């Protein structure tokens, strides 16, 4: 298939970027989106040009490294997959495809389509952990956990921290990420003792990073490659409000 790509090119963090038109010829429809970019890059290199820079790692949909906003949708038009798992058969011969970085003030562009998502690492460092040794995996049913809570915690734990929620949100809010990372621990007995300090610290770090805040558009859950529900945002809101009250009166 032959495609016309409109790709964001930006030489560095402080450079002014712009869209560049690149023709992608003879792309096999079984190629993944990133393999398509590999093919395009090889041709650019052969012609002596600068290849398009983009993030990728596992290419199995589990590491959260790949990004790209494709035709205005983070991770592209397929549901529940990352860009590396998106295949060219989702497009038609002759299509024009717009490829942009995940845009947010807190995700500065490093170069072309590569953005710096270390703001997420700092949010995790602020409270997305359990600070005591919880030991190795406990015996099954040794520690009773309500089935519903175990399921919800597991669903939240599927977050791979890719940042698509931020990229899709009209306000560049990371609350699906923060909610998922907090819920994953807060719902389990090992995470409960630090629930209050965790949500206070993570939300304060989130605000300090310059992200926007959730105004309930639910774009995040629509693009999340792990299909995490915005219910985790509701839980984070509730837990933050309760923790603030406790902090104020305790």
């Amino acid at each position: 298939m032959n495609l016309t790509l409109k790709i964001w090119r930006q030489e560095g963090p402080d450079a002014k970027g712009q869209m560049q038109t690149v023709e992608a010829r003879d792309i096999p429809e079984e190629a993944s989106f990133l393999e398509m970019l590999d093919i395009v890059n090889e041709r650019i290199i052969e012609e002596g040009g600068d290849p398009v820079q983009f993030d990728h790692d596992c290419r199995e949909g589990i590491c959260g490294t790949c990004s790209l906003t494709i035709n205005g949708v983070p991770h592209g038009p397929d549901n529940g997959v990352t860009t590396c798992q998106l295949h060219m058969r989702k497009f038609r011969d002759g299509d024009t495809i717009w490829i942009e970085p995940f845009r947010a003030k807190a995700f500065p562009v490093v170069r072309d389509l590569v953005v710096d998502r270390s703001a997420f690492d700092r949010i995790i460092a602020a409270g997305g952990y359990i600070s005591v040794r919880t030991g190795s995996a406990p015996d099954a049913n040794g520690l009773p956990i309500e089935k519903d809570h175990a399921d919800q915690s597991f669903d939240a734990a599927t977050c791979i921290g890719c940042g698509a929620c931020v990229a899709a949100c009209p306000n560049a809010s990371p609350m699906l990420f923060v909610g998922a990372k907090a819920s994953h621990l807060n719902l389990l007995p090992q995470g409960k003792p630090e629930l209050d300090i965790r949500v206070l610290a993570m939300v304060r770090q989130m605000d300090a990073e310059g992200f926007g805040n959730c105004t309930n558009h639910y774009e995040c859950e629509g693009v999340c490659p792990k299909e995490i529900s915005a219910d985790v945002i509701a839980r984070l809101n509730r837990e933050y409000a309760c923790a603030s009250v406790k902090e104020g009166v305790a």
Partner: protein
Amino acid sequence: MSPLVSTICQFWSSSIGKKVVVALTGIVLVGFLAGHLAGNLLVYVGREATNDYAEFLMHLLHGAGIWIARAVLLTCFVLHIVATIQLTRSNRAARADAYEVKTSVRTTLSARVMIWSGLTILAFVIFHLLHFTVRIDQGLADLRDPLVDRHDTYGMVVRGFQNVPVSLFYIVALTLLCSHLSHGVASIFQTLGLRSKKTRGAIKVFSWIYAAIIWLGFISIPISIMLGLVHFD
């Protein structure tokens, strides 16, 4: 600064804290709308019922009731607006560079225009207060109840809505209020952490029905008056 004051300041300055303030003040304003609508619908009962109700409100708690209500509503209104404007500004700043192409997958038109529907409602409320509360139109202010010596609230409403451009402005503003409520009421539940797998469907339906009832109830009055279904006499 005491630890309590410090926590309140920190809560207000946080994104979730401001949203909780928006949700809590929203509950007061949404509840007020239901009460206001119930009172307004008395125009369908007649002049005596409407004017009795107006008199009751004015004399509630020896006249203090209405001022307490006004103070609470004004406080909520100001907090709601200040918090949403501040949140909107930080949200705009969070995406300094816009996408060349952006495709929406879940959001609604009502959600996208919240700040604009809200600011239009602010302008409408100012007009509405000048129209029916301050009564800058002397013709409406001087109307007297023909049976009892008191202001004729019923006559004021009928005369006020017989002015077609004014009625049309009310209908447009109330339509934007309906849009605002359809997103806002559901958002209250999400912000206060009450939305879950079990409740999300019911919250969406409740939000739409509430917005529709408020919209139909309020716009029915100027429409009925313009169509001559509710008379001055």
